[in-house]
C-alpha cells in the first residue's frame, strides 16, 4: 500500500468523529521504483493532506519531507523527487492502520489494507 492510498483512507467505523489520518503500525516497508511524473505529482499535491503524508512517511522511516508545504515548492526539483518517493515508492507491506479515535486496527497484509468492518461497527 502506497502512502497515497493511506492519504485517501479514513476510519469507516460507524459513529466515529475523528476518522483521519489513520495511524500506521509498521511491520515491513518495501520500496518500489516508479516512473517520475511531474504532472501527476502536481495534480496530486492538491488532493493530498500534507501533514498526514509527512507524518506517515516519517513513521515509515523516511524523514526528508518538510513539515509543511505549499504550491510554490512544486517548482523545486528536489522537493518533487522527495514528494514522489514518499507518495508512490514507499509501500506498507505488512502492518496495520489504526483508527485515530477508537484504536481499532485495520490489518495490512501483503500490501493490502483490510477495511472490512464487523457487524457491530457498521
Amino acid at each position, binding site marked *: 500500500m502506497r502512502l497515497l492510498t493511506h492519504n*485517501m483512507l479514513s*476510519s469507516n467505523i460507524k459513529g466515529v468523529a475523528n476518522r483521519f489520518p489513520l495511524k500506521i503500525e509498521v511491520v515491513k516497508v518495501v520500496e518500489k521504483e516508479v516512473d517520475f511524473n511531474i504532472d*501527476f505529482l502536481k495534480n496530486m499535491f492538491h488532493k493530498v493532506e500534507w501533514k498526514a503524508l509527512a507524518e506517515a512517511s516519517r513513521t515509515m522511516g523516511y524523514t526528508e519531507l518538510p513539515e509543511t508545504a505549499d504550491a510554490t515548492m512544486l517548482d523545486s526539483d528536489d522537493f518533487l523527487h522527495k514528494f514522489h518517493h514518499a507518495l508512490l515508492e514507499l509501500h506498507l507491506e505488512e502492518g496495520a492502520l489504526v483508527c485515530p479515535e477508537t484504536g481499532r486496527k485495520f490489518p495490512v497484509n501483503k500490501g*493490502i489494507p483490510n477495511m472490512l468492518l464487523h457487524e457491530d461497527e457498521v
Partner: protein
Amino acid sequence: MLSRTAKIPLVSSHPEVYEPCDDSFALVDALLADRTNLLQHHPSICMEIGCGSGYVITSLAVMLGHEGSIPYYIATDINPHAIRVTRETMDAHGVYAELVNTDITSGLEKRLAGSVDVLVVNPPYVPTPEEEVGCEGIVSAWAGGENGRSVIDRILPAADNLLSDRGWLYMVTLTANNPSEICLEMRNKGYASRIVLQRSTEEESLHIIKFWRDSDCQLELKNLNYWTKLVRS
C-alpha cells in the same frame, strides 16, 4: 501488435472468485470501444469497484498504460480472495493498482470524494433472494437482491460522491435491473448517459452504460429545483 486487454491465460483464479465471463468481456469491449476518448481524457485516478479476478482493471491498465502519463489505479472488492487474485493477475501483466479489501468504497469516500476520473463497475446484478446479498465468497460477485438492484443502488450514490467534475462511470446492467430507471435516477443527480455496448447472450441481455456529469442536466436540475421551490412557496 500489443495486446489491448488482459490475456485470459494470465488471469489468475480461485474457487471463490468469479472468473471473467460474458459480462466482464462486454465491459472490457465497451472500454476498448471508448479507448480513444479514454486516452484523450488523461485520467489521473481510475478506479474499479468489485475487481473480482482483476480482468477488467488489468485490461484498463493495459489499454491506457502505454501512452502518456500513467494514472493512479485503485480497486476494491469485499472478497479477500478476489483481492489476492487481482494482485496476481496484475502482476502477470506487469501493471499495478492499489487494492483495498472493503465493501464498495467504504473508508475511501471521505478523502477520495470528487477525485475519480474513470470508474468502472461490474456490479452483482443478478436478481436473487435478498438474504444472499453480501454473502461471503463468490456469491458476493453476483447476488443482487430484488431486481438485482440492492448493491447497484448502494453503488450509485458512492459513485456520485467519488467522481470528479469530469468523471466517467462505466457500469454493467442487466435488463432486469431496469437500466432506463437507473439512467433517470442518475439524470436527477446531474448525469447524462449513453449505452456504449449492448449484448445479448443465451442467458441475459447486458447494457454497458457510460455516465458523465452534464451541465445541461445540472442546469435542468437547478431550474427544476427552482420551480419546485417557487411552486411550494
